[in-house]
């Protein structure tokens, strides 16, 4: 009997939860705010679904309801991706060690 591909996706999902569990516990508490902003940015990879929706259809159907929702989702996810990564970078730039010659 063949295994349903869903089971493979489920396996990826469950294993990723475990990876997430161990990786996140190793995040130092002082970086918990950047952790939130960067997880926010990466969860916007949902944009791939939005792009598929936005690009679908032929010339007549560019502004179908489905495409419009795709465009809107691309817009929202793009705000998040750029905003999330940049604000994380801005925060991380501030974390500096003590200067040695003090």
């Amino acid at each position: 009997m063949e295994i349903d591909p869903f089971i493979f996706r489920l396996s990826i999902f469950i294993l990723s939860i475990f990876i997430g569990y161990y990786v996140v516990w190793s995040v130092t508490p002082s970086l918990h705010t950047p952790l939130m902003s960067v997880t926010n940015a990466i969860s916007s990879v949902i944009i791939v679904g939005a792009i598929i929706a936005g690009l679908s259809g032929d010339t007549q159907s560019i502004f179908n309801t489905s495409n419009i929702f795709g465009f809107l989702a691309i817009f929202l996810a793009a705000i998040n991706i750029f905003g999330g990564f940049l604000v994380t970078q801005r925060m991380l730039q501030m974390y500096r060690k003590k200067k040695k010659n003090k």
Partner: protein
Amino acid sequence: MSANLSAIFYLISGILFILALRGLSSPETSRRGNLFGILGMIIAITVTFLAIGNFSNSFIYVLIVLVLGGLIGSFIAYKIPMTAMPELVAGFHSLVGLAAVFVAISAFLNPEAFNLGYPRDIKLSSLIEMSIGAAIGAITFSGSIIAFLKLRGIMSGSPITFKGQHYINLLLGISIIVLIFYLCNTQSESFFWNLIIISFLLGLLLIIPIGGADMPVVISMLNSYSGWAAAGIGFTLENSALIITGALVGSSGAILSYIMCKGMNRSFFNVILGGFGASDEKLSNKDKDQKPVKAGNAEDAAFLMKNASSVIIVPGYGMAVAQAQHALREMVDKLKKNGIKVSYAIHPVAGRMPGHMNVLLAEANVPYDEVFELEEINNDFANADVAYVIGANDVTNPIAKTDPQSPIYGMPVLDVEKCKSVLFVKRSLSPGYAGVDNELFYRDNTLMLFSDAKKMTEEIIKNLD
């Protein structure tokens, strides 16, 4: 590009996202980690374009909205002040949630584009996955909006409770499940729209009863939800990058909520059911004025600190409100010039989101190796001469260790009272969020400095010269 090849690239971007989180284990590696994350995102987006390979029709529109969103996002990221970080994160969560809802809607209306079947004849498993993604996304969206409004101060931070609240939520939760069931049976569009509306409603009602100081838990929880929503959509699209990311973000948010709950010694359900501190306020107001309090001024504080050999700073949400972090750093610089050892003690739930205080101190150029977590520094209070409590309250209350009747009993607290002297900057004697009077105010070794956190710190700086 073949489906197999793009699947491999999606896997690579998933791995890069794991490395992005892994980088956050120390500030040294964190910047590189963030670059891994950006690279992963670039790969995922590029592969999606190449896999579709349709550059003729709506490509230009897709690009325009992408750039437009990117510009707005970049603008926000550069303009936002660090003190506004909690509401920014809440706002961003709401966008992820709404984007998930929109993707689910497009997939429902045009399943052919996603290879999920035909309108009114969508594969059962895909239908379940997309309705779960849409429901969680909608809850994330409306919940985050409420969290945003509360953090921004547009909506009152005090818990809003009404009778039968939990039953309504339960009812809404059950109707979501029932709607998904009927949606799968009938494939009817109206069930799908109702599902989304009810989920929006549930998100609103879930967050409304939760008060301001519980926001660290709420933000982490919504972070987790946004991950699960992304994973739900990932299953629908059969996209491993989305599934991996969703699982990472989901577990990350769940762990943060757990850490925050532990920091308050409360169960997750206790926080979610809300209304904490709303009822206890009257109790604690009664016997307040009888006990004697020692009040001092900036001169006394400066004198005590000048003669100390070690000082521990305990910042809290009040510091963020008063924007006192820069003044605080200036004061510490002065102290250090006099050869005084200074460190910072951060309670896990200080502020309005996980790591809130650390970011503010980093912004004020406080080196991160002078900032310590509760477990690292708690034993040092006994050897320190002065504790400078600025904007923190409940997290220093010794009653949490002694009085089993107290609502905050068992909560881990900073052992501030063990210091030789405690300087407590606060505007009044009013109890903190938990509605519990802080026993520390009335101790012999406590000197109350009644003022705004920033003003008091600036005055102390003047007196240190």
